[in-house]
Every structure is written in structure tokens, then in C-alpha cells.
């Protein structure tokens, strides 16, 4: 089973799903002209932002088998970096974004170093607890809205200009970020580093026995994932022009896991599809009934009990295509 060459005629066929996906996303604003522009744009923007968060989680959950249940904390950290800096008059993305990423990375470094000392159920519960810690921290920030959250004065500026004030411009900025995040994750997964992470998922003992101190690699992976999710938080705050502790509830962390699993673990475009599926399903179901969770909850249970491999698994089964 040798790998096909990277740019052979098989390229389009193999990459059909992501190519189609991004082409579709690039065309959405044009379709939006037909009607309900702002609704569609904001919905799909939101989908893309969560897709970035789900991608980042897939990196450690799908490829590293690290069931991190506190991932929403990074959404909040990225968001609050924007909010708090704005509240102090610092509205330029050139400052906000690096701070958002740095704060997320630092939090990931500290909590990751502690969590990764443990395994299995302990790891799940500890990441959950650290996520909750971040949540309560946000709640206690009375100066920044506490429980109620805070409204931003406006979207971030770039070099002092309001480049992403326009919804369509913002849409493309987010699309660009998603494309970048996707490309980065793809690159990491097949790189030397990614191979170590994937190896650790399959057999940590074997990896240690050929000379890899796994803790270091998993920690770096955790920090990359957290930082990338911080980017999503930065974008989310900008889209809503609002941040609140609700960004980082543990239910939100659970939803991120659901997105990744719905799309299919360890398939990066699956994370994007999973995020879209989750948010669109939520949108659609809540159109019927305010009690949409009563449908979604059992749906989730059924997916776990009967459908393995998520939506991408289903697509693969139908399409018969393979994915490394």
C-alpha cells in the first residue's frame, strides 16, 4: 500500500471533500446576496469560528487520543483578551491577537503540564476541572461584567483601521483564518512531530521504548491546540462584539467534543463538517421547538451506540474512499 504521489491526477479526487468544502465556504457571501444576507453570513461565520476550535481539539483528541474536556476555556481566554484590552482602550488586533494567543498558550502550558501527568479518566476530569476554574475566574471578574459578560465597543481594528467592521470582510477574514488553521493542522499531522503524537495515540509504551519522552510532545501539542482555540475565541468575541463566561462553560467544552466526534475523529475536515453539522442542526431543530436538546441528546446517545466514525465515517462508507 504505497502512498500516491502528492500532486498526481489523484489529487483532486483524494482532496475532493476539503476542496469542495472551502469552495462552498468561499461562495457563501455570493449566495447570501439572494436574501437574508446578514443571517446567513453570521451563521456561517459562527460555524467557521467553531470549526477552528473543533480543528484545534481534533489535533489532540483525534490524533493524540487526549480527551480534553476543558477546551472551551481557550475560547473564553481568547475572547476575554479582546474584551479586557478593549475596555482599556486597546482595540488594535495587532496587540489583541498576540495577547489572546499568548494567554491561551500560557494557560495550556500550565494546566497541560499538570493534566498530562495523569491518564484516562483522571485526565478527562482534570481538564474538566481546569476549564471550570477558568469559567469561575471569568464570573468573578466583576470589573469586566462578571456573570453578565461585557459588550465590546466594536470590532478590533487593524493599524487603527476598521478593516473587519463590514460583515462580509469579517467573513473572509474568518475564512482565511480557518484555511490557515486547517493548513497548519494538516502540516502538523503529517510532520515528524505529528507522527510522534499519532504514535502515542496507538501505543504510548512502544513510543517511550524507542526513545520518545512523550510528556514533552503531548504538552507541546496541547499548547498548540489551546493557542489555536484562543484564535477562535478572539474571532468569536469580534463577531458577537460581546464576551461572557458562557463562552467557557463545560457544556461548551462538551459540544466541542461532540463536533469533533460527529465529524469523525482524526479527520481534520471532519472537524469542520462536524462543527457545521452541530450548529446547523441546533439552528434547524431550535426552529421547530425550544426543547431541541430533547431531540439532540438522544440523537447523541444513538450516534454513540450505533454509528461509529461519525459523519465522515458515513461519508467514507458511502464514497468508499480512504484516508490516512
Amino acid at each position: 500500500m504505497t502512498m500516491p504521489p502528492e500532486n498526481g491526477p489523484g489529487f483532486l479526487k483524494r482532496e475532493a471533500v476539503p476542496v469542495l468544502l472551502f469552495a462552498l465556504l468561499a461562495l457563501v457571501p455570493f449566495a447570501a446576496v439572494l436574501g437574508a444576507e446578514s443571517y446567513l453570513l453570521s451563521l456561517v461565520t459562527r460555524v467557521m469560528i467553531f470549526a477552528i476550535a473543533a480543528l484545534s481539539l481534533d489535533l489532540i483528541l483525534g490524533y493524540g487520543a487526549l480527551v480534553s474536556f476543558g477546551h472551551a476555556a481557550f475560547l473564553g481566554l481568547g475572547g476575554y483578551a479582546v474584551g479586557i484590552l478593549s475596555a482599556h482602550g486597546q482595540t488594535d488586533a495587532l496587540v489583541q491577537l498576540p495577547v489572546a494567543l499568548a494567554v491561551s498558550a500560557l494557560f495550556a502550558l500550565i494546566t497541560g503540564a499538570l493534566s498530562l501527568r495523569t491518564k484516562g479518566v483522571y485526565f478527562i476530569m482534570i481538564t474538566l476541572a481546569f476549564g471550570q476554574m477558568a469559567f469561575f475566574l471569568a464570573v468573578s471578574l466583576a470589573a469586566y461584567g462578571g456573570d453578565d459578560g461585557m459588550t465590546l465597543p466594536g470590532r478590533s481594528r487593524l493599524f487603527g483601521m476598521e478593516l473587519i467592521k463590514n460583515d462580509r470582510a469579517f467573513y473572509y477574514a474568518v475564512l482565511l483564518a480557518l484555511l490557515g488553521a486547517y493548513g497548519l493542522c494538516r502540516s502538523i499531522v503529517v510532520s515528524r512531530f505529528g507522527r510522534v503524537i499519532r504514535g502515542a495515540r496507538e501505543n504510548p509504551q512502544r513510543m517511550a521504548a524507542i526513545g520518545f519522552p512523550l510528556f514533552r510532545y503531548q504538552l507541546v501539542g496541547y499548547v498548540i491546540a489551546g493557542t489555536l482555540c484562543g484564535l477562535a475565541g478572539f474571532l468569536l468575541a469580534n463577531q458577537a462584539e460581546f464576551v461572557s463566561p458562557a463562552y467557557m462553560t463545560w457544556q461548551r467544552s462538551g459540544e466541542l467534543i461532540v463536533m469533533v466526534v460527529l465529524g469523525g475523529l482524526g479527520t481534520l475536515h471532519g472537524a469542520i463538517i462536524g462543527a457545521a453539522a452541530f450548529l446547523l442542526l441546533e439552528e434547524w431543530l431550535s426552529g421547530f421547538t425550544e426543547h431541541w436538546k430533547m431531540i439532540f441528546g438522544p440523537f447523541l446517545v444513538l450516534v454513540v451506540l450505533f454509528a461509529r466514525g461519525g459523519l465522515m465515517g458515513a461519508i467514507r462508507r458511502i464514497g468508499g474512499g480512504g484516508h490516512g
Partner: protein
Amino acid sequence: MSMTLLYVQTLNGLQLGVLLFLIAAGLTLVFGVMDFINLAHGVQYMIGAYLAAMFTALTGNFFYGLALALPSALAFGLLLEFLIFRHLYDRDHLDQVLATFGIILFLNQAVKVVWGAAPLSVPIPEALSGSIRLMDGLLYPVYRLAIIGSGLAIAVLLGVLVSRTRIGMLVRAGASNAPMVSALGVDIGKLFMVVFGFGAMLAGFAGAMVAPILSVEPGMGDNLLILTFVVIVIGGIGSVRGAFIAAILVGLVDTLGRVFGPQVLRALMDPSAASQVGRALAPMLTYILMAAILFFRPGGLFPAKK
């Protein structure tokens, strides 16, 4: 800071600790014996509270309500076990997390449909109303003392159950080597059902007991569940004794930290900064405690396995 406040808050912390223990006891055994991560344990607590509210309203008496709520909570737990959980035991943790997460989504919404979105309130029973003077200047509500008392009583009972009875021995044996227990003729699935049902009932009892002093509302078990995880992690998975010590510890640290954290800081820095920093730090104390304990003992205080 006055001594009276310290006493009152210590009692409050004890009360939180006792509640946490009631929820954690069943959960830690379920983790320990079946290696099963059950996020939906917090909804058992919520269901207990709702059942108590409903039956109290129906019978007009809290004690009748409690008496009816307990078996109902037990039956509900067993139903969930039968319908869903037993199909998840040999799945990996991620599947368990997802499915039990789905159950939470469903039940948090379902109670809204059944009992309405508005919080329910349950009156404190006549016999346990009012406050009692514990010492000079220290008045404490009788009902809260009743919670502490009944919680401690159950802790003692559970301790006896786990350390003295056959079932308790089997549970401890199962937590360290379940296949061997099975090879000696014990139906480990049935044993687990008993543990599970009992754990569900204890969580339900905790919910029923707090119904008169907290508002009964959807999602009320969610945040407590996370604290329960902290308790279990600190105490060591599968250890009831560990869960008890950790629960009391977490209850006290959380309660006293929130009240006295800012006050302690005020001695070190200027008052407004102290109250800001204190308020931000206090809710993190429990988690810092957890991190510190895990740093030195990654398996918790009383790990059940080796």
C-alpha cells in the same frame, strides 16, 4: 474577622462537603468498579430535588415527599442503567463521555418540559424550621444542621457498609480486580447495578435534602458535578474513604476561601485590590488544591488500585 463568622462558615463548608460526599460516593465506586465515566450523575441529584419537590407538593409533607422521592430516584437510576449505561461499559471513555453528555442535555431540558422552566421552591418542614443557638451569638438554621447530621450519618452508614458487609467487600475487591471477582462466582454486572442504583439514590437524596434551601431548577446538578469530580480525583478513584475526606476538604476550602480569602489578602495589600484579587482567586482555590495534591500524588489520596 469574627469568630462567629468563622464558625458559621465552617458549618456551611461542612454542609457543602457532606452534599459533595453524597454525590461523590456512588460516582467514585462506579468509576472504580467499572472504569465507567458517568457525567450524568449530576442529573440524578437534580432529579432527586425535583422528585422531592413534586412529592412534597402532592402530599403536603416534606418527609412523605422525601420517602417517596428516594425509591423513585433509585428506580430512575436503574432504568437509565438498564436502557443505556450497561451498553457502554466496554466502550472507551470518549464514547461514555459523549453518551452521558447526551443524557444530560436531554434531562436538563426534560425537567423544564415536565416541571416548567421556573425554579420550584420547597418550604422547609415545620419541624426543622427556625434557628438554634449553638453558642453565644451563634444562631444556625436547624434545617442546615439536619442536612449535616443526616449526611454524616449516611457517611458512617456507608463506611460500615463498605468496610463490614459482604457487598462492601465485593465492591472493594471489584475496584481492584473485577475479573477475579467474577472468576470466583460473583455476577459483577449485578453487583454493579446494585452499586449504581445505590449511588443514584444517594445523589437523589442529596438533591432532595437541599430542595428546601436552594431553588430547584434545570441544570442545578451540572456545576456540582464538576466539584464532585474534583473530590473524586483528590480522594482517589474507587475509594469511599478518600471521597469523604476530599469532600469535606473541598467543601471547607471552597466556602471558607470565598469568605475569608479577600479578608486575608486585605492584610497584605490595599483593600480594593485585595477584594478584587480575593474574589478572583477564591473560586480557583479548590482547583489549585486539586492541582497541588495531584502534583504530589497523581493517583489521589487513597487510590484503590495498587
